[in-house]
């Protein structure tokens, strides 16, 4: 039953870890900008407050879709840790992202709609990578589940350095960090206002935050796949990478969607594609 335990653990702990990370992100960002910033637990206060507020329902489909977004995102992580075939989880992951797109796109607001379309482009930009990454991990380890990868004697990062590099790039896109924050913005003074979430309020917005925490935790789990010989090392690499993300987030301005799409595909094709090709040619 270790699979079930892992799944439950993810569902319970992932939002805590994800929320803390976002809190730390806000503190560090504030310091970088010469501000004191909010307390570490601010994201939890925010979500608590949002859950209490009355939600303005713009249409009847947004709430079920956002609940679907949250549920499928939590489910993806639960399935990964629960020992379900890794390649299968990537489709649930995509479904989760699609729910958010549909929730935002169902609103007649041009800002929401633009955010939805751009999130769809983010999905288009990142999905090939995730499929390829999980296929490559399964290929080099000969395993098909999370536990199987951890038990494998093969050090994944040594076999797939190109895929790992590409992951760091694609994760920036997936986390909607600048310069790739094309679909939504934390700073609602730009052309997008806040994009995807423009018309979400109250508990609807809380679902989006919670799902984002799950997503962040899930990306950490993916990094652990690369450092399967040592889980702490994997988590440490993830935290280091996240710190770099914050720096990049604060020092770049938003790119156009064309650049996001082109660069993600180019990185996926060159780094992971090249790496995967090498793995297949070397007959592993």
């Amino acid at each position, binding site marked *: 039953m270790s699979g079930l335990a892992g799944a439950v653990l993810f569902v319970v702990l992932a939002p805590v870890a994800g929320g803390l990370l976002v809190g730390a992100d806000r503190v560090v960002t504030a310091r970088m900008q010469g501000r004191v910033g909010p307390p570490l637990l601010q994201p939890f206060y925010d979500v608590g407050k949002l859950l209490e507020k009355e939600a303005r329902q713009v249409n*009847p489909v947004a709430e079920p879709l956002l609940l679907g977004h949250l549920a499928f995102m939590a489910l993806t992580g639960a399935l990964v840790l629960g020992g379900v075939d890794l390649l299968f989880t990537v489709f649930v992951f995509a479904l989760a992202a699609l729910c958010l797109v549909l929730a935002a796109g169902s609103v007649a*607001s041009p800002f929401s709609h633009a955010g939805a379309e751009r999130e*769809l482009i983010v999905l288009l930009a990142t*999905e090939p990578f995730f499929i390829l990454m999980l296929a*490559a991990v399964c290929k080099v380890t000969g395993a098909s589940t999370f536990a199987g990868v951890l038990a494998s004697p093969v050090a994944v990062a040594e076999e797939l350095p190109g895929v790992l590099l590409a992951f760091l790039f694609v994760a920036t896109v997936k986390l909607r960090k600048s310069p790739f924050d094309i679909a939504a913005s934390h700073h609602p003074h730009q052309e997008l206002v806040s994009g995807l979430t423009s018309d979400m309020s109250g508990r609807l917005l809380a679902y989006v935050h919670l799902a984002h925490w799950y997503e962040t935790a899930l990306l950490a789990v993916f990094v652990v796949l690369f450092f399967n010989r040592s889980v702490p090392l994997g988590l440490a690499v993830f935290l280091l990478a996240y710190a770099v993300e914050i720096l990049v987030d604060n020092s770049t301005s938003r790119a156009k969607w064309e650049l996001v799409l082109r660069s993600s595909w180019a990185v996926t094709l060159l780094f992971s594609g090249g790496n995967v*090709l090498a793995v*297949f040619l070397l007959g592993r």
Partner: protein
Amino acid sequence: MAAATAGPGSLLPALTVFLVAFPLLAGVVLLFTTAPSVRNVIVVGASTVVALASVAAAVAFGNGADVFYGLPGDASPQTAIFIAEVAIALFVIGIGLHYRRFLAPALALAQLAIAIWLQVGGHEPAPDPSRLFWFDRLAMVLVLIVGIIGPLICIHALGYMRDYQRSYPLIRGRRTAFFFLLFLFLSSMFGLVLSNDLPLMLVFWEITTLCSFLLIGYTRTPETIGYAFRALNMNLLGGLGFSIAIVLLSGRPGGLDLARLTAQPAGAVLLPAIALLALAGLTKSAQMPFSSWLIGAMYAPTPTSALLHSSTMVKAGVFLLLRLAPAMAGTEVGTLVAFVGLLTFLFVSLVAVTEQNTKKVLAYSTIANLGLIAGCAGIATPQTVWVGVMIVVFHAVAKSLLFLVVGTLENRLYTKDMEHFDGLLSRMRRVSILALTGIAGMFVAPFGIVIAKWSAIRAFIEVPGWEGAACLLIMAFGSALTIFYWGKMLLKVLSTRAVDPGERALEERVSGFEWFSETAHAAGVVGVAALVGVISERVVGPYALGAFHAAPRTFLDVSPAMLVVLLASVLFLPALGFWAWRRRDYDQADFYASGRQAGADRVVGAALGGTREITLRNYYLEGVVDGGLVFRVGTAVCALVLAAMVVVPAVVRA
């Protein structure tokens, strides 16, 4: 191959004759039926009989060992085949000369010359009268698809054509021909999937080509005539390849027996013929470089697109490829077929994201799925063949439903442009729920096609060398593109807006025939999803293992956790539609419009006074992806691969 000859009491020979003869007879009666009320009765009655007969054939077969049989009384069809070949060729030559198009007559003439040389010259061995037909699990799957989805589409056409003729009043009289062609097509399709004798199969093959040609050119405008001839030319080219393959195989004892031909990997001697048969399969399935005919075919009335150009006729191509898979296993031909299919999947998916015409998006998606099946057939392992057949089943039901829904929308909204479908859930609720079911069946529902894609990726991991890496890359990018264009379509269906009662009343004018057919299809999408385990382990799995003489194994390795997820997500979108329907008086707050007043009617105050209406459009990746360019590049690349496929085995043999 576990071969068993049908016992004397078997019903299969009689049922086969019935499945071919009865729709033909019904079609001829319909050709002379002008009264709509009489036509309705005949079409519904004949459709019911065809569906029952196809189920009866599946029951008589009993899902067991392969059955080979001939005509009742062991009659020889050789003369009839020859007469049919001559008639088809003369028809093509006649109609080609009439419209001053000369390529099709030339191709038909070449085929006619081959037929005369084979028959009159006595070069073709007489077929074994006890092995004319081959009923196995794959044939059963196809018989059920043709026999259940086909009649449902015919019933739908009763409603669709009534409205269609209102838009094209000048061609009202041709409706008799339309229904004749639909039933003629069903007849030939049954013959095609059951034939074991290659010359017999070729006759049915060419009749489906002619049906497609005549239905595309139904309105007889210069535009549709052009597209009809394009389809005819490409399919006749494939047919010519088929004929030459028959010539190459005629010299060999049992060479024209499909089951014997494909029982094991083809040696160097047989490979050129296998390559030519594969060429025929690729043209019929509209794989690049032949994809343009299927896009042109979208100008045919929509039931045609549902029946011929998504659920059945184009499946005949991949059906042949799947049949050939054991012969292609491990050969250059197999690898090259796989890459034609997979590259087509990638290229047309990329084109689909730039397309705004809903029917064309569905057409590209059809070509993409057929490409995936062709890829699986070419890689030719039990696992990939399993994937291929599973996609055949799930795609047939879901895509047919989507085409029919688009047909209904087209007659109500007078457009096929995706951009005009926004707020569909607010405007046409029942149609929207049907559309959501179809889209879920295509790509959200992890039962079905997503399961198949997942299994395909699993299978490709095992493919050694650069080919494996290439397959994975193609799958990764192709799948992402698929999500993008279906996502855009979902955005349009799910977006909400204020509608007036007039718009809501649009739905009331949809005919009962269309409702019945589309609801039955939607039930089918859910049904095949619910029965995925049975379909996989009792039918498709045993077929794939039997074709390769492989050791028993399970294919659908689904854990209980996965099953729960699958059930949740297959029902998610349709349930969402119902939810929104029930909540019709949901409190709709104003949306955000930079602080200006904006309501559900999408009108905002403009900056300098007055009002502006907000219009929302999807992204079509302008500036990043040039659909036309991608299509041309794909066509060129696949043409090269295809040329290699035909030439390499011939050179190796020489």
